[in-house]
């Protein structure tokens, strides 16, 4: 409806409303800017780990290690970036132990969330899937839980890992068994049966063992080696084949859940070997809870132990317990904790949030108060660290001792497994 001047009746009302709406919108934009500005005062770190699904338990431990490191850094005022001290802000996603989802979530943190770096990838399979993203988005990525050397063999420039390669785990395992022969605890020429998970992790582990054996002829002989699928429910057929191999030593490379299932069926099969190992798994509280004395005398090559005689390890173990209310279980949280510390050190050295500068500083990193065996965290030219493993052995009454190397040992190795056990 028009008035005599041809304008719309009541035109002033929409005009006022428009002004008010504009002011409100402007206010919202300003508020958004203010919020964004506050957010940009923090260093966003993407964290992609499995806290549900098959790898949920170790993933949860790694998440706790990361969060403890972030808390401690923030409690100390944050990371010095040039003239400012900025806090770390975690952007967390659970990949549900699904490798496709894992890669997709890392891509999301790097492309949409604007993170400065990503810490993620527990287990070789998930780490492998994630590892293609860092170079694509030129964003540093540190995996605290994927150790297969294949991940670091592609020449990626932004991928780093705080776990020593798995072939070294296999090598150290065989080397440890070799020292038992030298000490007269085991006889020379013993036969080994291997059951390895069907992943790069399992392949690397087997290669490491065979490499040591080929370099030290006469010590051991591999009479059986076969792969199995991750997440199996029934290993009785595989174990029957192990039984038929009539080996003296049983070496498996398995993830936590498979270790528990396989060891349960191993005991139920009535088999006995002079030594048993499940690669990097052995001292976990879940295994002890599930099988009780059924895990006694199992030895494991692990990346870290709370028994390491370093003051920073004792402090970490105490801090972790205060933070989570639980004792630190195996190595998972420690490598994750050190990943964040390594990243913070690199950011501080870079003096900016420039991702390439941070990458360059990670390459030069030489963290001398690390939790890992040897106390030095240093990335190799391929992005992976290379510190030594420690061998631990489960003992009766839920005791776990470092038994190798000698200078870190907290107890004597029991070998062979006493008759009547296992």
């Amino acid at each position, binding site marked *: 409806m028009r008035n005599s001047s041809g304008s719309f009746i009541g035109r002033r009302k929409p005009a006022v409303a428009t002004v008010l709406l504009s002011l409100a919108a402007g206010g919202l934009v300003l508020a958004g800017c203010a919020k964004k500005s506050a957010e940009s005062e923090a260093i966003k770190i993407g964290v992609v780990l499995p806290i549900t699904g098959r790898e*949920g338990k170790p993933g949860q431990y790694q998440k706790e290690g990361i969060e403890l490191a972030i808390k401690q850094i923030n409690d100390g005022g944050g990371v010095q970036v040039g003239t400012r001290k900025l806090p770390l802000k975690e952007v967390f996603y659970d990949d549900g132990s699904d490798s496709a989802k894992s890669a997709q979530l890392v891509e999301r943190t790097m492309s949409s969330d604007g993170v400065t770096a990503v810490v993620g990838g527990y287990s070789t399979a998930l780490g492998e899937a994630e590892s293609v993203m860092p170079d694509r988005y030129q964003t540093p990525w540190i995996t605290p839980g994927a150790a297969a050397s294949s991940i670091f063999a592609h020449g990626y420039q932004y991928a780093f890992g705080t776990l020593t390669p798995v072939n070294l785990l296999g090598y150290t395992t065989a080397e440890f068994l070799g020292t038992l022969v030298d000490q007269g605890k085991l006889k020379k020429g013993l036969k080994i049966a291997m059951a390895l998970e069907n992943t790069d992790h399992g392949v690397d582990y087997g290669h490491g063992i065979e490499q040591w054996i080929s370099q030290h002829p006469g010590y051991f002989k591999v009479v059986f080696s076969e792969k199995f699928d991750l997440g199996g429910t029934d290993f009785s057929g595989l174990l029957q084949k192990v039984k038929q191999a009539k080996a003296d030593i049983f070496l498996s490379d398995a993830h*936590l859940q498979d270790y528990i299932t396989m060891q349960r069926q191993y005991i139920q*099969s009535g088999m006995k070997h002079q030594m048993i190992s499940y690669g990097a798994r052995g001292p976990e509280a879940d295994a002890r*809870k599930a099988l009780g*004395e059924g895990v006694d005398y199992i030895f494991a090559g692990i990346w870290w132990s709370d028994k390491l005689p370093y003051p920073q390890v004792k402090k970490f173990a105490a801090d972790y317990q205060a933070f989570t209310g639980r004792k630190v279980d195996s190595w998972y949280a420690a490598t994750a904790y050190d990943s964040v510390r390594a990243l913070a050190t690199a950011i501080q050295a870079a003096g900016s949030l420039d991702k390439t500068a941070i990458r360059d500083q990670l390459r030069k990193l030489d963290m001398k108060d690390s939790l890992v065996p040897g106390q030095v965290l240093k990335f190799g030219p391929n992005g992976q660290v290379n510190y030594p493993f420690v061998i631990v052995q489960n003992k009766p009454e839920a005791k776990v001792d470092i038994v190798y190397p000698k200078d870190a040992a907290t107890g004597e190795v029991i070998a062979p497994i006493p008759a009547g056990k296992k």
Partner: protein
Amino acid sequence: MTFVDFLNLLIAALLLAGIYAVMSVGMTVIYGVMKIVNLAHAGFMMMGAYFAYELYQRLHLDPILAALLAFPFFFLVGVAVHWLLVRWLPHSDRPTLQSLLLMFGLWLVLQNIGYLIWGNTDRSILSPRTLALVHLGPIIISSLRLVVFVAAAGCMAVLEIALSRTWFGRSVRALIQNRYAGRIVGVDDEKTARLTFGMGIAFAGVAGALLATLYSFDPDFGRPFLLRAFVIIVLGGLESVSGVALGALILALVETFSILFVPASYQPAISFALLVVVLVVLPGGIAGLWAKRRRLA
């Protein structure tokens, strides 16, 4: 391979078959009567595992006894789920998309309830039987597996008796053969369907409780067993309880013995290769083959 090795493997396969049969039979009876592919079966198995775990942890109740208690408990749960959800589904002689989606959704809900209550931590039952062995000369048998097998075989025997000697069993068999003809001769199809659904879920709960004594579990527990259950019921002929027992035995034998000739990493492929072969060569399963033979005779 020595004779003792062969016997050891045969016994392992038989013990495995008992577990496979009890975990598949619930799906079969539900499919037979209602033509519903119960994807939520895995969810109820998971709940059965936690049922046994909680009774063991809180009341120190023997897990095998807990498995027996799981039957009435999950029967009631099944009847309630039927009353709340399943009865609203359209009746059909074939599986419908609605039923498939409903059951899939229910599985997800159960899984998430599991995560909410118990988190993602792996649980397991460590009873005095867990590590015990029975030595029969050179043959070694896990006493727990033996007990689980006896419990599973007992459940199957009770089901067989119930189906062959009771009015309810005759009603179930009538509806499996022809729902509409069953109604004509006076079978209360709604009531029978409700009780059958309850029974199917009860078997899922029992299977879960029994499996909890053998494996560690989390809220995702049941998924690999569900896939095997599919293979077994297709082998058995979808609607036959005795076919399920035979299907379970065949799958267990094939899985156990084939591993001697192929690498262990191919074990999951063996089940599915078997499924494909049965679908192509024997689409009616073993029960279909029996029916054909009877017709020819």
